[in-house]
């Protein structure tokens, strides 16, 4: 009996130790780091979520290594950032020195204390934050502190098939979004269905992902500027969704459009433009490079997306460098982030790309860096290609880059996104009306925001 009691006690003790051990968090560990441009650095810098896969990354990485000095060894942990792996690393005291994340993730990391505010880093390394595009900086600013050094800007432009537009008697003005009734009319003219099967998608409003773009074009934001209030049931958001879904309904429903879109050779020479199976859609600027590479003769026409007043508009996203809590070499991490995003590094990287594109006979379409100064210098390096179509694409891209907006950092980034995307999907799948779907999404998103903000106070 005694032996059994002893056994139970041992099991309980071991269990308690194990539970306590595993539940160990990071407590209130603070990072004391001397951030100074003139400090000689040493030690290791492991970079999570970043792989130097192209010349833009490789050249800047070489610059960063040079600036940190030969006593710093850099280890890259490539691949998309694995959030759980990253957070577990931070929690167990095994954080990487720098983390490379989507800007949309920074608020969530900051709210949990997984990354540190960069005020001291910015001050010590003299990082000129005014050089960053405000939409990029807003996305990494949480409760008044910058938690990430932004880089790259992804924007959308209207990409259209000029032949199809011409045959239908349409121009870019009909599909750039400046007038939704014009887009709806153009959609009907461009759409072609044979025997109940869709043969040409007239206009693809790219739902669910581009709801923020259409809402903003209609004068509404999905979330308040302080990141605390969801605004998904705003009548302007509902109106934008109703219109964008109507584009699909006029073509026989989202199911048909999606099925046809999914069957397209998106990255190949038989893409929707080259095969004449898509009239127009808003799409990120990187797709211009794909089209130029795989189907340089495609009959393309480009413009910025326009808001209801006819002004250019684009939803900006991109990446950011952040320093995790527990980073063992924050000084080096900060310098790494500075050099990766400073104008001279971007320019050097762009020069290398120009050289390589010239060697391959390809087109240099510029690089959107998230840094206004670097963008200007790189734009100046672009030479007319001699082909009006691709020059038009580059002009549209840079114009869009000057007219961006972003969503503010908030602690429930992923849940908020899931809430509005699920709402849009319920409409696309025919399960709810736009109004009901957005009302439900509003409830879910607001609850997620309230819970997440309340958590910070605990």
């Amino acid at each position: 009996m005694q032996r059994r009691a002893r056994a139970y006690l041992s099991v309980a003790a071991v269990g308690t130790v194990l539970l306590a051990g595993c539940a160990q968090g990071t407590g209130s560990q603070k990072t004391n780091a001397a951030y100074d441009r003139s400090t000689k650095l040493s030690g290791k810098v492991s970079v999570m979520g970043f792989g130097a896969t192209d010349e833009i990354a490789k050249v800047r990485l070489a610059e960063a290594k040079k600036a940190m000095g030969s006593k710093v060894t850099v280890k890259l942990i490539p691949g998309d950032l694995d959030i759980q792996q990253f957070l577990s690393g931070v929690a167990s005291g095994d954080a990487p020195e720098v983390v490379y994340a989507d800007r949309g993730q920074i608020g969530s990391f900051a709210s949990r204390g997984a990354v540190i505010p960069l005020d001291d880093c910015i001050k010590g390394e003299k990082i000129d934050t005014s050089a960053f595009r405000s939409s990029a900086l807003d996305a990494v600013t949480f409760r008044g502190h910058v938690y990430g050094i932004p880089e790259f800007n992804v924007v959308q432009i209207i990409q259209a098939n000029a032949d199809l537009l011409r045959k239908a008697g349409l121009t870019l003005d009909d599909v750039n979004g400046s007038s939704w009734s014009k887009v709806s009319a153009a959609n009907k003219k461009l759409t072609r269905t044979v025997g109940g099967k869709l043969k040409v998608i007239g206009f693809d409003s790219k739902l669910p992902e581009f709801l923020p773009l259409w809402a903003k074009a209609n004068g509404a934001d999905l979330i308040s500027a302080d990141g605390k209030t969801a605004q998904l049931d705003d009548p302007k958001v509902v109106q934008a969704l109703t219109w964008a879904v109507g584009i699909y309904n006029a073509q026989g429903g989202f199911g048909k459009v999606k099925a046809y879109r999914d069957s397209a050779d998106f990255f190949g020479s038989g893409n929707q433009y080259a095969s004449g199976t898509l009239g127009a859609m808003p799409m990120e600027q990187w797709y211009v490079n794909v089209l130029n590479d795989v189907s340089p003769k495609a009959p393309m026409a480009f413009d910025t997306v326009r808001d209801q007043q006819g002004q250019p508009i684009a939803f900006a996203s991109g990446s950011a460098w952040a320093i995790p809590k527990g980073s063992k070499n924050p000084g080096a991490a900060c310098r790494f982030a500075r050099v990766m995003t400073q104008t001279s590094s971007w320019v050097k990287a762009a020069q290398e790309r120009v050289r390589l594109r010239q060697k391959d006979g390809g087109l240099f379409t510029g690089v959107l860096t998230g840094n206004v100064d670097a963008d200007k210098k790189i734009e100046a390096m672009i030479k007319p290609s001699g082909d009006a179509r691709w020059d038009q694409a580059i002009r549209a891209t840079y114009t869009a880059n000057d007219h961006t907006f972003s969503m503010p950092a908030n602690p429930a980034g992923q849940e908020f996104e899931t809430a509005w995307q699920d709402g849009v999907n319920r409409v696309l799948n025919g399960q709810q009306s736009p109004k009901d779907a957005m009302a439900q999404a509003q409830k879910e998103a607001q609850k997620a925001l309230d819970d997440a903000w309340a958590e910070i106070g605990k």
Partner: protein
Amino acid sequence: MSRRRSAVHAGDTRAAWLFISPWVVGFLVFTLYPLIYTGYLSLTDYDVINDPRFVGLDNFRALLSDDKVILALRNTAVFAVMSVPVKIVLSFFLAVLLNRAGRATGFFRTAFFLPKMTPPVAIGILLLLMFNGQSGLVNEVLGWFGINGPAWTTDPTWVKPGLVLMSLWTVGASVIILLAALRNVPQELYDAARVDGAGWWAQTRHITVPMASGAIFFLVIVDTIAALQSFTEAYTAYFGAGNSTYANSAALFYAIYLFQQAFQFLHMGYASAMALLLFVIIMAITGIQVRLSKRFVFYAGDQS
């Protein structure tokens, strides 16, 4: 004499424990401990990075009022109810056919099993290609018979049937198990039945099915558990690589919602409570199946 016997007995026991210890250690470390820890986490608010905070039964209370939990449970139950019988019946039918295939059995056995080697993520992508409403193979074939196939991948009514049909891609493993069971049915039973004038159907019903009932029961249990934990194919096709922003709530299985809560929203405590609930549900269903099996499953060894 008895002391010597007990010494031998103790030695045997030690050896037995030694041999079984790799499994015992594995079970303790990789099954029992995570289970206990999940139980602990289910009572906490835990976001991976900060210390778990004890919240009592809050997570379980939240579970009961979470509409998505109800939706995910319903989706999972409907999928299991549709997929398990279809899979068992088809694999039994194929096993019976294979059993009569003579020399070609070896080839077909390999051919049926090969799709099982496909990674589940690839099956998810394959689903989107084969069941594409516009140009998919399935609707193409239906078109030959004048049937205008549905939008399998977007119409909520057809999403689960599509997943059920796609789950048949890996039916090969069940076919092999059933084939082995059919090979063990003594030929004398069929000979005796034939002498008594039993036809193919009567032989199948009264000899083949009862004699293979042990294997069928095993498959019912294993397939039910797999269906209730179904994740990768549906996630890939409707929530992950196949669609980065588009999702279909008809495919929101319980394990997918659990994954979202744990690894996307970082609500580890809540996800642990969800995991425990699923564990209890699976235990209960398996318990009922085991109880019912006593009426339907025939074990030759029980007859002695």
